[in-house]
């Protein structure tokens, strides 16, 4: 068995490992996540039973944790778009080991985000009215169109490059014991759609992936732009902004990459993927984070300076609550703890390590969630008439459902790695072979040079 075959065999085994073995720790994790998710479902049923009165939302501050979480989840869904689609379009070879996880984060986050819209509805059965009476003049309708399209495109974009790996699982797990093994074999056989790696199949698949990787980039950009327009199309102080679309997209990519780093660090450690997901990947992702931290700082300046220079009455109230009063701790944590410090951690060579970048990513995600929260709440809090500002404080129901959302997100990823190929084996192998081939002539030339000298 030559070295290349051995390497390939090792790669396949490593990818199959999560599917083949289930540790006690995994079972405990799943149990805990199911318990938290279940508690959230109970809280939601309680809310359905008693009405939105059990939340902290009222008529004046009618959006809170739910909408913040929706925006945050839609934001982190950009992980897959950036890392997978943009790097695939630019043919960046280093992307191969991390694209699958990025694409899966996208799908799970979108499902999670969309479900928070339903949670936010006091009468969720009225969701059907969107389709019965949807009107194109409404930004809510634009959101429905954009998110539905993005979910479908993301699922297809996750599925298409997975087909060769599903065929691998079909073949390698054909003799898996028990009913579960038979069930999995049927699943892989169905999903692999008869993949035999023929040149014709490769051509068809490459064509489909090529179309989707280009298409999904504008769809993803449009999705978070449209999400921002739910706010930006109003005349509310803090939301009435022309840069909200691109501001939200930048924040989405920023938090999406941070989430990808967090998930990668955990999966790499748990499933021993160190050979494939190396420090180089984290450093490159770290550079993305640092760049986007600077972009976000720039957007903060341009957003608040243009408003502050004119300082209309509502904006003054907004600035006071954001920079000096009720929300100042959140804002300054976001700016310093979520934008400046992560940037410094990554730009400093000594802290530009996997643990350092992991910490930076956690700070970024925390800060971006807080940013979504204060955008939603501070905008609604500015009084439109001369009455006192309303207050909002999430209740146990909202916190429970938020926890359930995070647990559900983790649960779906944990279940995914038990069923589907965690890495794009065929893409990693292609990239590895291409690198080996390109390295050989150089070695030969070098040897020739030594002989002649």
């Amino acid at each position, binding site marked *: 068995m030559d070295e290349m075959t051995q390497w390939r065999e090792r790669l396949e085994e490593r990818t199959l490992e999560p599917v083949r073995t289930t540790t006690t720790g995994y079972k405990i994790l799943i149990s805990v996540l199911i318990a938290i998710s279940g508690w959230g479902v109970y809280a939601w049923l309680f809310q359905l039973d008693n009405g939105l009165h059990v939340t902290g939302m009222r008529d004046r501050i009618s959006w809170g944790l739910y909408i913040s979480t929706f925006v945050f989840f839609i934001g982190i869904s950009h992980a897959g778009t950036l890392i997978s689609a943009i790097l695939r379009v630019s043919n960046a070879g280093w992307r191969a080991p991390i694209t699958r996880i990025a694409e899966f984060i996208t799908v799970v986050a979108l499902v999670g985000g969309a479900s928070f819209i339903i949670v936010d509805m006091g009468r969720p059965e009225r969701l059907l009215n969107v389709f019965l009476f949807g009107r194109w003049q409404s930004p809510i309708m634009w959101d429905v169109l954009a998110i539905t399209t993005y979910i479908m495109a993301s699922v*297809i974009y996750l599925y*298409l490059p997975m087909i060769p790996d599903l065929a691998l699982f079909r073949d390698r797990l054909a003799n898996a014991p028990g009913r579960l093994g038979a069930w999995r074999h049927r699943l892989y056989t169905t999903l692999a759609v008869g993949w035999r790696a*023929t040149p014709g199949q490769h051509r*068809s698949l490459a064509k489909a992936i090529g*179309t989707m990787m280009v*298409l999904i980039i504008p769809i993803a950009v449009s999705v978070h732009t449209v999400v921002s327009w739910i706010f930006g199309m109003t005349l509310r102080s803090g939301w009435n902004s022309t840069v909200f679309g691109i501001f939200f997209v930048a924040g989405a990519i920023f938090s999406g990459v941070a989430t990808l780093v967090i998930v990668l660090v955990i999966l790499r450690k748990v499933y021993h993927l160190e050979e494939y997901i190396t420090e180089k990947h984290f450093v490159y992702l770290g550079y993305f984070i640092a760049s986007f931290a600077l972009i976000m700082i720039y957007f903060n300046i341009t957003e608040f300076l243009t408003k502050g220079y004119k300082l209309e009455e509502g904006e003054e109230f907004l600035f006071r609550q954001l920079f000096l009063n009720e929300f100042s701790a959140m804002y300054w944590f976001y700016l310093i703890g979520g934008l400046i410090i992560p940037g410094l951690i990554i730009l400093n060579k000594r802290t530009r390590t996997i643990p350092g970048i992991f910490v930076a990513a956690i700070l970024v995600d925390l800060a971006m969630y807080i940013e979504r929260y204060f955008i939603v709440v501070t905008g609604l809090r500015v009084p439109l008439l001369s009455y006192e500002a309303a207050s909002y404080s999430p209740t146990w129901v909202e916190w429970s459902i938020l926890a359930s959302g995070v647990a559900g997100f983790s649960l779906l990823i944990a279940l995914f790695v038990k069923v589907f190929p965690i890495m794009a084996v065929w893409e990693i192998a292609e990239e590895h072979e291409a690198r080996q081939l390109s390295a050989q002539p150089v070695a030969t030339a070098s040897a020739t040079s030594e002989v002649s000298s």
Partner: protein
Amino acid sequence: MKRFTRASIALAAITALLTLAASPALAETSLLVAAPGEARVGDTVPVIVTVTESGAPVAGAIVLLSRDARFGGVGGSVEIARATTDAAGVADLSYIHRAAEETTTLRVNVVDSDTTLEFDVISVGEPEQIFQSDFGVNLPGLGGWVLIALVAGLWMIILSTVLQLRSVAAEEAGSSDRPRPKRRLLPYAVPGVVALIAAVLVAVLIRNPATHGDLSAMGTADRVPHSHVGDIEPLSRPGSDPNTVDSVEGVVMMVAPGLNAAAAVATEDPIIDGARGFFGLGCASCHGLDAVSGVVGGDLSSAVDDGLDEFLGDVRKGPEGMPPYPDDAFTDEELAAVHTYLVALLGE
């Protein structure tokens, strides 16, 4: 160009001549008014006033067109147009007919004169939206079809992509010497699902004019408008003088939705407290300003008929999809006041 009914043109005009006792400034002043007797809501109604003094035209006199109006519980004469007479003593005025009531009484008078003439304009035609905004920039060719084309185009590309699955599956048959594989469902199911979702989204957009061109076409309680300008405001205590302080308090409650009920000072009048509760606690946001038709909630007339105990029980338990409100949301005293207000409002 605004429309006028044939009848209104035929009536073209109520022409009236009124001679009143001369004021010190303008002796023997007479007003001759020509205006349509009927108008549709939204029409621009011309009002031509000729001012004469002892039979001679008065040039440079300022003529006011006004009507009595009430908004937010405050009433009085509201000037809606003014013009100066020309050499022939003619002042050319006009106003947009906005009133939803059957008859609008308008008043013409000359500044610095006691001479006043009142005349009626009758509203005709189907009830229409009262305010039609002239705002907006109409870009030729830009409309909902652009969005439909964009969505349809995007989904067509997605559909063409997933159709490649059929090619992948078809290649399997010729890939090896394996037995011919059975027909696979997934390469057809996935494009089918994509096509279905695309069709639904496009259908929603195409149906948009049908579902929103005419709200009344929906014809269900879900879509009944709250109120029209000109409707009797439910804010004032039934039977009370609309210009009293009671009514003004009602307005304060209306403009400050969400006003903490505890912050409102209780009065000695349970009807006023009840009105305050009805708007301040949020009942009106579902059941409508007049408590008989809301976007969400139903007609509360039945609650009046059923009595206080049942009313309290309904609010606490939440009948027919209404969320139940526990004791810490509203007290029984607050609800009793709301009930008293509803009885006064709807009981007759």
